[in-house]
């Protein structure tokens, strides 16, 4: 496991967020990091919390998207997995004596500016980045966060965004030839999608 290159991804897994998740995974891989996400493997026998702890402990970097701070309709349950996992990650960094954990870098994303501070005032110290629910904006925020953390030679956000669009066209073209319909392509499992990104970027 390469702690220095791993990045834990903690984000919503709903249908609305799925396109943003795919953009995020491409961006992270294009910059040269390895996203670690619970969807990377699916073993029904595996205890989810153990898996999350393993991903957190194996990643120097992490991205926590708290975009679901506000219910979309009356009666919708507030999903607490994302803030819970952010808490685990902060705990791992702050309560662990291991030097490598102290070096952890954390990015908090939100869809609506200041929504995290309103819903989770304990995080009022945090400099959250806002993507407005836009894939292109997400690329800019994530790319710039890596650069702000001292990473050299990060490709420009424009080139990553254009690369993602071209990558998606390749995926569409090649899968269509194999008989996949657009909805099959758009809903490829994340593990398969990530493997396709690896094929294209190597």
């Amino acid at each position: 496991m390469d702690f220095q290159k791993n990045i834990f991804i903690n984000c919503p897994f709903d249908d609305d967020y799925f396109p943003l998740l795919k953009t995020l995974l491409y961006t992270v891989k294009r910059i040269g990091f390895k996203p670690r996400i619970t969807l990377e493997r699916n073993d029904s026998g595996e205890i989810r919390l153990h898996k999350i702890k393993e991903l957190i402990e194996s990643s120097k970097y992490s991205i926590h998207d708290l975009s679901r701070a506000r219910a979309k309709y009356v009666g919708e349950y507030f999903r607490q997995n994302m803030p819970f996992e952010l808490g685990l990650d902060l705990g791992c960094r702050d309560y662990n004596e291991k030097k490598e954990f102290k070096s952890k870098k954390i990015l908090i994303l939100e869809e609506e500016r200041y929504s995290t501070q309103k819903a989770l005032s304990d995080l009022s110290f945090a400099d959250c980045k806002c993507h407005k629910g836009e894939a292109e904006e997400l690329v800019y925020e994530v790319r710039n966060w890596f650069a702000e953390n001292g990473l050299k030679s990060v490709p420009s956000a424009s080139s990553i965004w254009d690369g993602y669009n071209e990558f998606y066209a390749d995926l569409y073209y090649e899968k269509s030839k194999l008989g996949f319909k657009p909805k099959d392509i758009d809903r490829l499992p994340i593990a398969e999608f990530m493997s396709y990104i690896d094929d294209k970027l190597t």
Partner: protein
Amino acid sequence: MAKRSSRSTPPKRTHVVKRESGWAVKKQGAQRATKVYRTKEQAVKGAEKSRRSGNDVVIHKKDGSIQKWKKSNK
């Protein structure tokens, strides 16, 4: 000459891609957009020119996925 449906090499592509300032028409692999339009409709219309000269036009949604793939007119 091989039929178009059996071509093995991917056709050249022109992409219609979301930009912060509008919608760009951009040839595959080019560093810069050919032109950025204020609306998607204008960009799709602008891309038609390259379709007539042999490129497929790939119209993206704002999330980067594919809305429509228009094969070249050649």
